[in-house]
């Protein structure tokens, strides 16, 4: 009918969180190998994580590090080797060089292209299909019409994010470590895990002299300040032929994925059953309460990413 999926970075979060609303879980934080016990950089933890997800009747996908340098390729290869021995349902790749690595290793698992794979066109989807890519996460700058065109004109499944902060930038170094108080950091330069606190980039607050901008920073990745929200549009999304939906969980507080997932599970099931849409106002209120900076529609309706074109 449809698949609702989200992401979980490590075993602790997987054990403690409520992910019962989801059909599938993307395991790992693709942005930061240093994140504690990150599935994406700890091959020894993959089997336990995979078994836990499978025991819940869900599919398990493994996220690979998004921006590997030459120095990272050996350890990423170890993660791949471990993953290929396990019954993951797919591997998620952002870096195109890793597609070559997977081919050389004889990977038979389906491959999903991640958000930083820069999928903008059906022609690119066709090329990637030749590398074993079966699902793509379109670049967030695409409109719904463009995503539908890609789905219709390339033999590939598209993932449609429906809620959560939009990944905007990824870099190879940690912005939080570079700018937090040096006296609070380990002398050996190792990670101080300062990202366990929320960090925000803000500009123009209160004085009216500049644009009022807000972004959330989690170290090696910057996210939109506002949460993408498509809870008003489940019927439209299904009518357009989309069947895979995603809630972005990375960088959120415990409990976020559970609350948001339950709302979207109910909305999508109602729409899929052809039932009349319920009053969306309570859901919007609950989702607004979960957000720190409010809601947006991303680029889906052809505007700058932080706009909200709500019907309510």
């Amino acid at each position, binding site marked *: 009918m449809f698949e609702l999926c989200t992401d979980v970075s490590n075993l602790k979060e997987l054990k403690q969180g409520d992910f019962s609303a989801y059909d599938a879980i993307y395991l790992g934080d693709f942005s930061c190998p240093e994140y504690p016990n990150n599935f994406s950089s700890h091959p020894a933890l993959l089997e336990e994580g995979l078994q836990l997800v499978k025991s819940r009747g869900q599919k398990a996908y493994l996220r690979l590090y998004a*921006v*590997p*340098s*030459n120095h*990272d*390729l050996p350890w990423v290869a170890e993660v791949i080797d471990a993953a290929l021995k396990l019954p993951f349902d797919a591997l998620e790749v952002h*870096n*195109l*060089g*890793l597609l*070559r*690595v997977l081919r050389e290793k004889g990977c038979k698992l389906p491959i999903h292209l991640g958000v*930083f794979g*820069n999928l*903008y*066109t*059906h*022609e*690119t*989807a066709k*090329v*990637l299909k030749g590398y074993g890519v079966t699902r793509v996460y379109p*670049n*967030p*700058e*695409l*409109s719904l019409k*463009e995503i539908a*065109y*890609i789905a219709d*004109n390339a033999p590939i499944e598209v993932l449609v994010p429906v809620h959560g902060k*939009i990944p*905007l*930038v*990824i*870099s*190879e*170094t940690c*912005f939080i470590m*570079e700018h937090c108080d040096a006296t609070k950091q380990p002398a050996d330069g190792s990670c101080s895990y300062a990202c366990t*606190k*929320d*960090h*925000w*980039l*803000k*500009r123009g*607050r209160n004085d009216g002299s*500049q*644009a009022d*901008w807000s*972004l959330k*920073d989690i170290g090696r990745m*910057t996210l939109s300040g506002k949460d993408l929200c498509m809870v008003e549009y489940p019927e439209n999304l299904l009518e357009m032929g989309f069947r895979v939906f995603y809630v972005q969980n990375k960088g959120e507080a415990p409990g976020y994925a559970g609350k948001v997932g339950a709302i979207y599970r109910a909305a999508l099931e109602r729409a899929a059953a052809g039932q009349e849409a319920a009053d969306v106002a309570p859901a919007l209120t609950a989702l607004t309460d979960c957000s720190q900076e409010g809601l947006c529609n991303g*680029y889906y309706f052809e*505007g*700058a*990413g*932080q*706009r909200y074109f709500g019907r309510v």
Partner: protein
Amino acid sequence: MTKLLAPAGSLEMACVAVDEGADVIYMGPLGFSRRPYESEMSDAAIREATAYARAKGVEARVVLNTFPSPFEYSQFLDKARQFADMGVSGFIVTDVGALPALRRLLPETVLHVSIGSGISNAADADFYRAVGADVIILPYRWGIDEVAAVRRHSDIGLEVFLFETVQTGKICPGKCIMSSYLRFRDWLEIEGKDHFYGSANRGAKECYRVCQTTWEFGVPGETSVELKLRRDARLMLAQLPEFMAAGVSCFKLSGRERPVAMIRDLVRFYRKAIDTVLGGADNLDSFTDELAELRGRWVHEKRIRVDTLMDRAKHYAT
């Protein structure tokens, strides 16, 4: 053979770059080259610039490095064929799908992978070679070890910007959509498009360089710091001998949006420097003073540019 690639943000700049010794000029057509229209060129101007360059033995490349919309893909390929018919010898592209498509359409053309592709390792070189690229551009931040690692790994052509930078901050060409998340404007008639296609990554809408303005950064409730999101890159020189020895074949000067006089002086400077290395020199210390002066001018012009973009961003709707 080592080539100096120079920007042509206008017909005048194209002619100046040719006259000052560029081996290759590159030009962006309206709506397809990740620059505002002021730094792009009409098809007629590209035709004229190409003819001028070819008459003097200089190659012309066209920058088609937007991620085109799926809806404009045939237009994108038609543009490439049109420019090839004018005598353009190659293209600088970002979209992966465009590489094999252009290779099929124009088998003899030279295909450069744009900085917007976000190459980060040697395995990327394998990927892009396999899908039809002739040249990849390497990240600003790479030193000689990284360059040499790719050279050992692949026979693909290597291109570097004439920039150097530190490896901190949000340095992520091709992996950033901050600007369009915050602001963008409607198309202008002159850009030849009247439809939504998103951002600087996708056409003539501007990247507002929001990474280069000041932000407040910190944990809510604690003291914040004021900062830019990345350090500015600066003009590079000392690395030229070792990069050339390591097999870098193309050195690219940025600056289609800079004043023509600045590009004139930079092309002249780097022509001399490259020829000096080709003549056997292994250090360029004699160029130090001239480099310092050019770096100062570059920073001054860049500051003006960023201020202009931020001023525009304030006035466009979200």
